[in-house]
């Protein structure tokens, strides 16, 4: 469980992804900074959460980590090996050890293929024989009966399809699984089943998870460490318990106070004014300053750096309540 002394399995350094719209002459017309210089480390055996609202760049980060988007700048290391450039055949092999489970169960499996065919594919790629046995084993792991092999996706419920998605990811024998909002599209009861399933699998197979979500309560249950993103940057990151108990960054505080919870004890709700700004139009200085209840003059001009706030946590804010004064 505890991951402090474990090896670093994924290291992200200065990751950037810009979507640029150029005119015919190559001049940049519009630049959407989806991910704007983020860095973090994931230890082996832990679940790392990335939370934020729409436009924060968490989904783009997932795409970058999975190799589906090329990066604009920065590095991604997997077990110490630089996997940023995927034209290398060796890198391609390494990348196969990172798999993904997608948000929408309906579109994440080929509707025209039987479940058997969907699960055969990863084994065929790895040139593994005895596929039947492996598939049965996989289905057992995700608590589905063998009879599901001959079904079509439209015959399955959302939760069952999501399990197939998990099974397919497992078929590649990955070491890291990126979970992109794995339970957003299912009901709360199915969510509970899937979360429990994911926990069991993680322990059984010694996996590391990257959980992308907007649901903070799921993060609290599942993750050991978390990063809070806003408009392409990480605002605060660190172990889950200290951050949830005492968030330092104003945005984190706002997020925590805004989620509707059933618990009795909850912080006073901080309601922000205005909308989430667009990543193509990022505010100067600290990107949260237009909506920040603590914003000061210096927040408009300078981007804050990540500073340690104790307990292994870090936050990027000029004005932090723990008394770290700005220059």
């Amino acid at each position, binding site marked *: 469980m505890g991951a402090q002394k474990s090896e670093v399995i994924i290291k992200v350094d200065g990751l950037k992804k810009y979507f640029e719209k150029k005119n015919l002459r190559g001049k940049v017309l519009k630049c959407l900074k989806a991910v704007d210089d983020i860095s973090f480390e994931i230890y082996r055996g832990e679940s790392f959460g990335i939370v934020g609202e729409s436009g924060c760049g968490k989904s783009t980060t997932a795409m970058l980590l999975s190799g589906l988007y090329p990066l604009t700048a920065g590095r991604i290391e997997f077990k110490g090996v630089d996997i940023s450039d995927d034209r290398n055949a060796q890198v391609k092999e390494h990348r196969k050890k990172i798999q993904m489970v997608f948000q929408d169960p309906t579109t994440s499996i080929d509707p025209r293929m039987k479940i058997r065919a969907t699960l055969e594919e990863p084994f065929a790629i790895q040139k593994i024989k005895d596929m039947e046995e492996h598939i049965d084993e996989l289905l057992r792991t995700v608590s589905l009966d063998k009879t599901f092999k001959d079904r079509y996706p439209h015959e399955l419920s959302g939760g069952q399809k999501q399990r197939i998605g998990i099974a397919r990811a497992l078929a590649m024998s990955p070491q890291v699984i990126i979970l992109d909002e794995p339970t957003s599209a299912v009901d709360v009861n199915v969510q509970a089943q899937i*979360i429990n399933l994911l926990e069991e699998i993680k322990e059984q197979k010694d996996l590391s998870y990257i959980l992308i979500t907007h649901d*903070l309560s799921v993060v609290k249950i599942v993750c050991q460490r978390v990063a809070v993103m806003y408009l392409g940057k990480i605002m605060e990151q660190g172990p889950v318990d200290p951050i949830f108990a005492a968030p330092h960054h104003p945005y984190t505080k706002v997020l925590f106070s805004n989620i509707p919870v059933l618990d009795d004890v909850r912080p006073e709700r901080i309601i*922000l004014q205005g909308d989430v700004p667009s990543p193509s139009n990022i505010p100067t200085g600290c990107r949260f300053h237009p909506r920040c209840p603590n914003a000061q003059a210096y927040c408009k001009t300078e981007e804050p750096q990540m500073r340690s706030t104790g307990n292994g946590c870090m936050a990027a804010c000029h004005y932090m309540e723990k008394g770290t004064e700005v220059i």
Partner: protein
Amino acid sequence: MDTMEQLLNVENLKTYFKLMDSTVMAVDGVSFLINRGEALGVAGETGSGKTVTVNSIMRNLPLNAYVTADAITLEGIDLLSLSEKQLHSVWGKKIAMIFQNPTSFINPLFTIEEQMTDVICFHEKVKNKQAVKTAREMLVLVGMPDPDVVLKSYPFQLSAGMIQRIMIALSLSCNPSLLIADEPTTALDVTIQAQILKLLGDIKAHTGGLILITHNLAIIKDICDRVVIMYAGKIVEWGDVHQVMYLPMHPYTKGLLDAIPRLNNQDKRLRYIPGNIPSAIDPPSGCRFSPRCMVAVPICFEQEPPMCEKVPGHFVACYVIRKERGI
């Protein structure tokens, strides 16, 4: 409670859809009432029939739907007996509805002003100038910054949160007696969701009554006075929101509440209800929940339990009632 004025009364509502070779009993005998000044939450998972219930009240259903009820009365008017034409004067004027995906319910081709005045002129029979004034007032009421700019804008220029506010403003513009909100914040970000929920709480005073449909029980706890828990087309429990949430009696309600991840939860495992939601074509005999119920006794499988008031103001349909404290 009975001294309050009754706003909407629904008795024994049944809605079924005729498919090619089967019939889907989406709602099978639902009764509830809402008093003036009250906010009623309708909670349930996908397939519980909550959306179909309110659409049946509005009679906004496809052609293959059949609705029967002993009574559906709004402020004394029998909604079932109204003709299509008469219904049009009820929709928007007496009952207004806002939906989950606000951008799908607004016409992208017309400005906000045009769309709002369309509705206002139709119902209130006023001149355009007056309608614009009313529209502006409503936008201010919902806390829209720069209402004049917004009025002249097209939907694509506005964010989802703003559009949802506009929908709320639009639905309030004709002073309806009843406002129905169907998953109004599910598609919105957490911070925007908090804004909209606060708004709905604030405007409770302006509408006669509010029905909030959602699968998120935490939201209901925040805003609603009473809650109805639906399962497989039936109501299993209803009553005062704090009673039902803290002292749930029905095993399904309890299971649902247990499955929700809590911030204060130290346990990493979530408890969930095994099995799946039953088929709406061929529902289980007896209590619909019996196949998945941990405490079912033989009679549960044979006869449907009647709704009874175990505690004043708190109704439940279950033969075996759990007396444990909730949460």
